[in-house]
């Protein structure tokens, strides 16, 4: 029969070298690219400092309880997601399988984002940076047209990196430079996860700590840049009126949820390698708070740099206007400076209004430049790279920035891969004699081959689809079933006893209330709001089309029906695992109960899954 949980060391399960490694892995998994490029954006568009209120409320009632639940579950049952949910109830095995499917889908596209980061990183060693100047056209009389009409940074991103097609239906060709970088990224992931947590545990020391160092360096540098204070003031000035908009609350809830990387199965895998008598309650609170603090800490350098960029753009706008006025009126150089620009313009406008009107001066407003908010890849690869060109010593800043992004993404990839790797090891898809290195190698190889689709010309559109549909909705569903499963099927009294055995303390009222009522309710509300918002308009995307009349604005297009079908499939596949597997188990039991009426063997065959 199976060994009881009281004698853990005999089951030969790998374990963490020390507790610090475990905490660092959880933090590294939770802290990812979203902390740098999504949280500051949300802060900015949702009223600055006021956004912290719904954010911390969501952290308190949704983030911390769900995190504690997952960590406690994995630590107690000492299995990956599929095995753990099978132990809770064979009907809930689908929850584990759903988590596993989501981890697979997310691993595929997340590493492609890291591929882009790596491409920028290896291009940062050039002087001057390749995205600082436009290339010339064929007869060398001017700049490349596509580059000239947009900006050099945009051109480098859309043409030289992605070589993007104007429509998702046009696949384009495989970009060989991206394939090379993709192979490198998967090789790095293989190198770090080759023996499971034995190797990731060592790698995490670097990948989890290094981003904090770089963020601090950027913080110091960012605060010394001109215009940084404008950016920070803009970010943190609270505008409490935005709290009336329900969208803000929804964004806070979803941001907390996705930021903590819940429902991927990775956290369950990580905590399953813990010794059972470990204080998972303290761990959960610590990881959640560190994650939120990191988001806040990261937004300071990001917004200093954005403020600097806005100020520089504002100065450029002013300077261009000044030059046109000086040239038109043949005034001596440096007669009009930025400070007396407005007085000069009003003076000239009163004396020569037609000439001023003929110049078509752009209105330069600092607020307008600060309002240009971007999130996601646009922030990192377009806005930030442009700001880096303006800093002295741009190569060093670019290299630091992209290594930081790479470390952030890599530590999250470890969690994703563990979420895929651990259940496979437990399901024993390969025989025991096969070395772990081979299994991880096969996983990485297959993932690399599938991810080649994302290196096509239309690859970035597909990554957007995966991000929006596979990496969002199914997680909410799975998390909802997780809470319901533990609280109402496994029964919270039993779980409280298990947690008390592990931590030595009784579960206090906060956990009881949040697990029983608040978190499931919140998840249900967020899920429905999410679905309603998606249904409101047909899913569309913005395409980079040089032939569009509004170029360099991106063209708004609707997804063709076959792509919409794929979106639905991506969102539905992990969710549908839950009821399907429950149904499958029900029919299997019905068939078996018809054959044999021996109840005890049924009982033992259920518990046989414990070994």
């Amino acid at each position, binding site marked *: 029969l199976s060994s009881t949980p009281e004698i853990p060391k005999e089951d030969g399960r790998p374990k963490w070298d020390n507790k610090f490694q475990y905490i660092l892995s959880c933090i590294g998994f939770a802290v990812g690219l979203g902390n740098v490029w999504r949280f500051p954006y949300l802060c900015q568009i949702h009223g600055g400092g006021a956004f912290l209120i719904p954010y911390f409320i969501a952290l308190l009632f949704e983030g911390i309880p769900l995190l504690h639940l997952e960590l406690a579950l994995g630590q107690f049952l000492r299995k990956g997601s599929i095995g753990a949910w099978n132990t809770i109830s064979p009907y809930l095995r689908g929850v584990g399988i759903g988590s596993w499917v989501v981890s697979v889908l997310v691993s595929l596209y997340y590493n492609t984002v890291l591929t882009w980061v790596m491409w920028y990183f290896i291009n940062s060693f050039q002087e001057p940076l390749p995205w600082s100047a436009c290339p010339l056209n064929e007869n060398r009389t001017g700049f490349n047209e596509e580059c000239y009409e947009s900006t050099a940074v945009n051109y480098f991103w859309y043409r030289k990196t992605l070589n993007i097609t104007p429509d998702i239906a046009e696949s384009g060709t495989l970009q060989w430079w991206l394939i090379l970088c993709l192979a490198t990224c998967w090789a790095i992931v293989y190198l770090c996860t*080759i023996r499971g947590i034995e190797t990731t545990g060592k790698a995490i020391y670097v990948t989890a700590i290094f981003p904090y160092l770089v963020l601090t360096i950027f913080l110091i540098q960012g605060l010394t840049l001109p215009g940084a204070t404008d950016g920070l003031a803009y970010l943190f000035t609270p505008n409490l009126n935005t709290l009336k908009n329900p969208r803000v609350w929804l964004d806070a809830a979803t941001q907390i949820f996705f930021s903590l990387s819940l429902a991927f199965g990775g956290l369950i895998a990580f905590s399953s390698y813990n010794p059972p008598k470990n204080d998972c309650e303290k761990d959960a609170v610590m990881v959640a708070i560190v994650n939120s603090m990191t988001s806040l800490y990261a937004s300071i350098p990001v917004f200093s740099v954005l403020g600097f960029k806005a100020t520089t753009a504002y100065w450029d706008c002013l300077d261009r206007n000044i030059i046109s006025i000086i040239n038109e009126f043949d005034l001596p150089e440096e007669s009009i400076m930025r400070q007396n620009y407005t007085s000069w313009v009003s003076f000239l406008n009163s004396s020569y209004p037609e000439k001023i009107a003929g110049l078509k001066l752009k209105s330069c407003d600092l607020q307008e430049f600060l309002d240009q908010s971007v999130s996601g890849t646009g922030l990192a690869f377009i806005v930030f790279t442009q700001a880096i060109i303006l800093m002295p010593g741009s190569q060093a800043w670019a290299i630091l920035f992209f290594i930081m992004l790479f470390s952030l993404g890599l530590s999250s990839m470890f969690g994703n891969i563990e979420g895929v790797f651990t259940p496979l090891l437990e399901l024993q898809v390969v025989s025991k004699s096969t070395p772990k290195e081979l299994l991880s190698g096969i996983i990485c190889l297959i993932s690399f081959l599938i991810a080649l689709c994302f290196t096509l010309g239309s690859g970035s559109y597909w990554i957007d689809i995966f991000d929006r549909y596979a990496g969002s909705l199914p997680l909410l569903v799975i998390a909802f079933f997780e809470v319901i499963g533990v609280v109402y099927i496994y029964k919270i009294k039993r779980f409280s006893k298990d947690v008390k055995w592990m931590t030595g303390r009784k579960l206090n009222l906060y956990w009881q209330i949040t697990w029983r009522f608040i978190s499931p309710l919140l998840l249900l509300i967020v899920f429905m709001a999410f679905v309603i918002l998606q249904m409101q308009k047909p899913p569309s995307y913005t395409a980079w089309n040089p032939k569009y009349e509004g170029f360099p604005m991106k063209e708004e297009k609707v997804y063709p029906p076959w792509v919409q079908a794929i979106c639905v499939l991506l969102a539905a596949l992990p969710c549908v695992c839950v009821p399907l597997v429950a149904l499958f188990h029900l029919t299997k039991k019905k068939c078996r109960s018809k054959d044999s009426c021996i109840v005890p063997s049924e009982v033992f065959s259920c518990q046989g899954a414990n070994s």
Partner: protein
Amino acid sequence: MLRALLLTLSVVAIAHAELCKPDAQNAFKVRISIKTALGDNAYAWDASEEYLFKAMVAFAMRRYSSKSTTQISNVLLCNVTDRVSFWFVVTDSSKNVTTVPGSEVEAAIRMNRNRINSAFLLSDKTLQFLKITSTLSPPVEPSTPVWLIVFGVVLCLIVAGIVFLVVSGIQKHKKKNKDSTERENLEEKVEVTVTLENGIPCEVLDLKAGRINGVFAADDERFTSL
């Protein structure tokens, strides 16, 4: 005689005024931004600089057409402003009171743009000939793209790491196998002196009272309700 001379001079002056004026035929506007280019080291634009400019244009015309007939006096400047900007035109001494075609002047300036810029310590942007486009120099491209070199270094490091880990894993596996066979051989030699029943030495077992086996005495609550 004097009157005739005065008359010719005035005719020439008027003709010059006719030839060089803003938007005249074959005239070009030049715009110079000395302070932008040189900052504190900026020099003032005065008559000597204008003379140098005329000389450079004449030099350019001579080099282009290799006729060696263009004189400094053939280059006419007018409408100098504080900006500093002015118009210039090149006259043809062989034909009376006409200007050299704009295309020739443009080609000549283009050919010698570098020399003209260096004479004034300026660049294409700060010494602008409006209407004459400059050939932009391409960015310097090294023979092997730098990114391939960096990529090669990174890839080599990673492959070395993977090979090291895989080989060490295989060695550990072999050693473990060898150790376990050695231990098996050793165990066969040593006689087991203590007989065990379910992990408990026989002497300790109370054969009459029996011993509760913890595995079977689990709580009912341990089993999931079906």
